[in-house]
């Protein structure tokens, strides 16, 4: 049994949130630079250059890369040998978010869904807790912008639609999103599970670095084929047409029911901000 005070978790998430708001992930920066070099010219190349410059300015001036500093998505994978003490865990997470959004001069974007009145401190965060083996806590922090979140979809396919149906669903989601979610996008895909766990898989898929592939060969092939088809859509950076519509496709899977084939497609814009730490 290892005791961890939730204040330690709060302080760690606070640091991660401040860092995430002003920095793209290294794999995102590399992918944007590559997209810029690959593009022939025109408005798409101009836009990609602007994005590469923006990442540098944000880092240098300690300013949010994007004004949509997002909804704070926090995934906690807690070892079952950990004993948590101190304030309630969810309170600690929300306190971290509240402090970081105030101290970082981040935009507070969370509001009541009906009255649209802002909560003024960017809480509550979207918190996912998984219990796993060991005595450590893995924290994943993803500030998620909503221009791209709005373009996400969930399909309940028929089992007969199979791999082709899955790829069609992924490509269709990106095609229908068009210029709106800030392409080039990163596409997180959940395959299988249930209505709810499938959507969570898609979100987790986004937290994987660009350029990595699923360990399962057949799933990795879906990622590669879908990416090829997406980049043939010619939507391009910001919808200005061009070679790069997506920076990558990342799929995660779970066993599902014999009657179904859920596929969730969570769109992430080119502004990928994700921090991972282990306590």
């Amino acid at each position, binding site marked *: 049994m290892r005791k961890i005070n939730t204040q330690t978790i709060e302080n760690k998430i606070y640091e991660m949130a401040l860092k995430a708001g002003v920095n793209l992930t290294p794999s995102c920066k590399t992918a944007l630079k590559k997209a810029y070099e690959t593009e022939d010219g025109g408005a798409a190349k101009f836009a990609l250059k602007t*994005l590469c410059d923006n990442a540098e300015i944000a880092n240098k001036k300690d300013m949010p890369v994007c004004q949509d500093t997002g909804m704070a998505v926090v995934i906690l994978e807690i070892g079952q040998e950990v004993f948590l003490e101190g304030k309630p865990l969810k309170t600690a997470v929300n306190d971290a978010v509240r402090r970081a959004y105030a101290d970082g001069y981040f935009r507070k974007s969370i509001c009541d869904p009906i009255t649209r009145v802002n909560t003024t401190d960017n809480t509550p965060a979207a918190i996912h807790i998984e219990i796993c083996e060991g005595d450590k806590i893995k924290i994943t922090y993803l500030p998620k912008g909503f221009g791209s979140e709005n373009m996400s979809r969930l399909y309940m396919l028929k089992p007969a639609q199979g791999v082709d149906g899955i790829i069609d669903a992924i490509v269709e989601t990106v095609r229908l999103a068009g210029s709106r979610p800030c392409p080039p996008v990163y596409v997180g895909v959940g395959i299988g599970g249930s209505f709810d766990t499938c959507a969570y898989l898609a979100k987790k898929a986004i937290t994987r670095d660009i350029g990595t592939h699923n360990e399962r060969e057949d799933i990795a092939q879906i990622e590669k084929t879908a990416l090829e088809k997406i980049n043939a859509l010619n939507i391009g950076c910001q919808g200005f047409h061009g070679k790069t519509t997506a920076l990558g496709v990342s799929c995660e899977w779970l066993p599902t029911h014999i009657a179904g084939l859920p596929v969730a497609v969570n769109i992430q814009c080119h502004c990928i901000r994700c921090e991972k730490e282990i306590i």
Partner: protein
Amino acid sequence: MKELTLPLSKKTVKELKAGDSVLISGTIMTARDCAHKRLFSLLDDNKPLPFDLKDAVIYYAGPCPAKPEQPSGSCGPTTSARMDVFAPRLLNLGLGAIIGKGEMSDEVRKAVKDNCAVYFAAIGGAGALYADAIKKSECIAFDDLLSEAVYKLEVVNFPAVVAYDCHGGSIY
């Protein structure tokens, strides 16, 4: 790269073609979802708007708070399509230009053409770079809406691309 100074004359607007890269300097007003709802309530009640629509430029944006030493926090564009329901009426009332990101509806594109206006696409996700182009920012209405309030921005060399021109052309 064309350098544009606001307000735009109709002659200048007619010279713009979809796909042109531009640098904009002058005064623009931010307004996004909630601010538009408020503007529409004022229009419906025949009350004056917080700024003159004639030849004005609305920027679909909700900035981060500014640090004490900065004129503005990060301030890139938001998705324009959510303002599809609002844009035609404002364009018909004299709004000169829109700045946002992404495709808008055919109705907006038609209203841009009918009113000899222009829709500029700013580069989504470049919030820090746009903050650099903002020299002054002042909240002029609906301050209770926080980032969704109306901010009057003075911008210099604000980069954008002509998305819909006044001839019916589109970059998308």
